């Protein structure tokens, strides 16, 4: 710096500098709103085209508004079965992965044991491996052990649990780290054994984290395409169904289902934001 700044730089700044600062300030706001618009644009298009009455086979150009697609959401062959499969796999895989992942998270955060570093690594690796490699390696396992594994519902389930577990561990771990150990010690001092302490003290305290992790896991499961596609065999989840029709023509019902999933997820997320906002306010009121 060459010039010596004054004691109150803000007061002495010239008009040009102030205009420039204000332009910069608003430019950032304008940019942020444009960026949000960019993120929302495809979502709006998906919802908009769920109300389109496509002129021919292709639902690319806007033609005419209609509710028909929403009323006949399952009019396309296979779409309903695919959604049912997606939900079944999602629920089952989420329950199993949440249980397995929570136990791992508890072990990592609460216990010192030989092999802790290796455990962390094993949990981290699946998240940092490209999906195509995860799917490819599982597929070779299944193809080489056809006596045990036939491609279909259960191989999808196995794959989903595998890639969800790590995300569950990370989510629950984050919550467990800020957790007061004395509560458990108090329960043990009062004569509860480890299992009772876990059931009556630990579990209720980490339940919100488990719920958040489970929601994330479910979202990952019903959205997954790459791994599922490789290990699905003849079975179709909703994304696999979309892939199949994308090569020919995408019926507007696909947009209907995607819009419905989006709206449900957004409703849950908004409820969560609202709940956080409320409890933050309540905390402010308490102090």
């Amino acid at each position: 710096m060459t010039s010596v700044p004054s004691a109150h730089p803000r007061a002495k700044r010239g008009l040009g500098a102030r205009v420039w600062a204000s332009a910069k300030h608003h430019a950032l706001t304008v940019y942020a709103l444009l960026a949000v618009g960019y993120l929302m644009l495809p979502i709006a298009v998906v919802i908009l085209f769920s109300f389109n009455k496509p002129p021919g086979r292709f639902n690319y150009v806007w033609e005419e508004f209609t509710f028909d697609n929403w009323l006949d959401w399952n009019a396309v062959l296979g779409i309903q079965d695919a959604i049912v499969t997606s939900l079944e796999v999602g629920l089952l895989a989420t329950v199993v992965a949440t249980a397995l992942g929570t136990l791992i998270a508890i072990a990592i955060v609460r216990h010192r044991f030989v092999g802790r570093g290796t455990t962390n690594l094993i949990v981290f690796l699946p998240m940092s491996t490209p999906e195509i490699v995860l799917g490819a390696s599982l597929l070779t396992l299944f193809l080489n052990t056809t006596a045990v594994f036939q491609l279909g519902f259960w191989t999808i389930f196995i794959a989903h649990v595998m890639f969800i577990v790590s995300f569950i561990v990370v989510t629950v771990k984050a919550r467990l780290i800020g957790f007061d150990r004395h509560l458990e010690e108090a329960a043990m001092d009062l004569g509860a054994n480890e299992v009772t302490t876990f059931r009556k003290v630990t579990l209720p305290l980490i339940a919100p984290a488990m719920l958040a992790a489970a929601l994330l896991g479910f979202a990952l499961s019903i959205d997954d395409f790459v791994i599922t596609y490789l290990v699905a065999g003849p079975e179709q989840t909703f994304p696999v169904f979309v892939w199949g029709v994308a090569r020919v023509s995408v019926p507007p019902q696909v947009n209907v289902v995607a819009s419905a999933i989006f709206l449900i997820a957004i409703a849950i997320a908004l409820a969560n934001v609202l709940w956080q906002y409320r409890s933050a306010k309540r905390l402010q009121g308490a102090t």
Partner: protein
Amino acid sequence: MGSFLHRHKGVTPYLLLAPGILWLAIFFAIPLGFLGYQSLQSGLFPNFEFSWEFSNFSDGIRDYHEQLVRSFVYAGIATVACLVLAYPLVYWIAFRAGPWRNLFLLCIVAPFFVTYLVRTLAWLNILADQGPVVGLLRDLHVLGPDGRLLATTFAVISGITYNFFPFMALPIYVSLEQIDPRLLEAAKDLYASSTQAFLRVTLPLSAPGIVAGTLLTFIPAAGDFINAALLGTPNQAMIGNVIQAKFLESLDYPGAASLSFILMGLILVALLVYAKIVGSERLTG
């Protein structure tokens, strides 16, 4: 059971770990072994034989170096684009959005709530030849009268950028949000201009988020094949497209397996180079 656990305290962590780690061992680690085994086989479907066929690897690189290079170039460009697009947005959310923060964060995550394939297909609508974007660009003579956006490199890279944007934005947001505002006040008190305060305080403190975001974006982007398949042509095929087609269409399992390993190895090399540049302690957090 309770008394058993009480007597053998050292066993507890292993009992907790066992089911989950076993699952990961059987369905993540062992499959990688099978992938290696398959990658060294020779023969034609369904009669593959293990024969230490290392030529699968050299053949893979020879035949598909174009797709390999393209995967890393596309992923690299998309990662930089994500960084440039996401940083100002999350900066604004962290420092200027006030009580609306959570709502804007939700906007960043919102694309994840639309099925990956469907939101990629939405770009087909947006970039369509008869669509408004192409029409506007043709009127402005940015595109020629027959110019198109679909089936171009641009379409594939922007698809990847859009799809992985939240992976970049969220970690940067987290690191920006943790910055103590008093640090910025201190910088101002010490006569730093806002540019200087940004470059000397905010940017370095958000570096962990940038590093995490870069990894979370680049790794899945390099293995992606959906954007190239839906928004591009075979001229934009990435290595993921090749692996997927070899597994499910041409049934060349050894070829697909060796290419998967090559992809993993190249990503590892990229990570090591990146670690060298940013410092390895930053990479592991």
